[in-house]
């Protein structure tokens, strides 16, 4: 993994370093004008992997709430907006913020922050403590996939 100077290891008292995903450190991000323009940790995404992450139930699980052009999967949710053509409505930076922490845009959203700072969560079960639902690489993969939805 490419390590950048901006990479921040958050210390949570005696808990020590906060690990995001599989042992990687949490990369801080900056939202400007309702977008995160810089790719997380400077990584680049792979749209094919992103498409798989979008329907894997233990990963993005986007289909729980959204309809997507993934016809081989049955039963798409309808809680969130239909994501067909979402790449024409938002650019990569806007999509990234929506995945990372939608609450920056809408504080009462139901959508989980897939790369929200784990320090800002409460009562996380042991198995998931200090981790984000998706890793920085996985966020970039899903952003790359959503950009292809034209």
């Amino acid at each position, binding site marked *: 993994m490419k390590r950048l100077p901006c990479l921040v290891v958050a210390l949570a008292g005696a808990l020590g370093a906060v690990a995001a995903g599989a042992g990687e450190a949490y990369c801080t991000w900056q939202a400007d004008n309702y977008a995160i323009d810089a790719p997380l940790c400077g990584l680049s995404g792979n749209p094919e992997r992103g498409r798989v992450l979008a329907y894997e139930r233990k990963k993005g699980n986007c289909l729980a709430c959204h309809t997507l052009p993934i016809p081989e999967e049955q039963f798409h949710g309808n*809680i969130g907006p239909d994501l067909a053509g979402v790449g024409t409505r938002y650019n990569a930076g806007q999509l990234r913020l929506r995945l990372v922490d939608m609450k920056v845009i809408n504080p009462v959203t*139901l959508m989980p922050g897939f790369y929200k700072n784990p320090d800002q*969560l409460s*009562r*996380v*079960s042991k198995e*998931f403590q200090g981790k984000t*639902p998706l890793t920085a690489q996985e966020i970039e993969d899903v952003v790359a996939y959503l950009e292809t939805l034209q």
Partner: protein
Amino acid sequence: MKPDTTKTVMLLLLAVLFVTPPVAGAEPKSGYEYLQLESREMQDDDFMNPGMSAVESGAALFRSAGKNGKSCASCHGDDGEKLDTGNIAKYPVFSDSLGKPVTLQQQIHTCWTENLNNEPMKYDSSGALDLEVFVRNLARGEKVNVQTDGPLQPFWEQGKEIYHTRAGQLDMSCNLCHVNYAGMKIRANTLSQGQSNGFPAYRLKNGKINGLHSRFNGCYAQFRAEKLEPGSADFVALEVYVNSRGNGLEIETPGVRF
């Protein structure tokens, strides 16, 4: 239609639009309403409803002699006919002696241990649930009627707070799904209002009777949050709030739920 009539109709429509309150505080709707037809039919027919076996097991416990030779039936009648079903619909109720609310299961358990000298049972264990199902089933058709003011008010407020507090890695709270999105689809499942009037309920998902507190923990597991202890003060307060959301709904125990 004459122009004058059309005008009157338009004005009436406008009046209705502006006078009708927003639908935010929707009418309570039982989880039954969100079930598919086959599941509703299963609940409607006592011979098909798998939850009815818990009513029978509960009845057997109700009539079984405790260590001191007494049974629940000694005071409340063989079929629980001396119990006040209107009172059952009020639980959780405020206990003056304890200075806090008690759930129906806790009240039954207090009789079980203190009046019959039986060994304690774990909250939401199968025996405790069978007894609760039996007793609540006696009140089937009674309207849920939980007090929200008076001595219960601070506990109702506490439950409301928990209901609206985000938790877990997915940072969610009860209201986000069950108030804001009831009726919408999560994959193939329809979100309900999360009403408790069918509980303890037989869930098709795990094929057994589920206590309300254990069901709360099922949601917490989904948002990857630490579970709370069934029977804990937090869950009792949450039950006060959740049951009160369904005030006016008929008790359906044992409901069939997804």
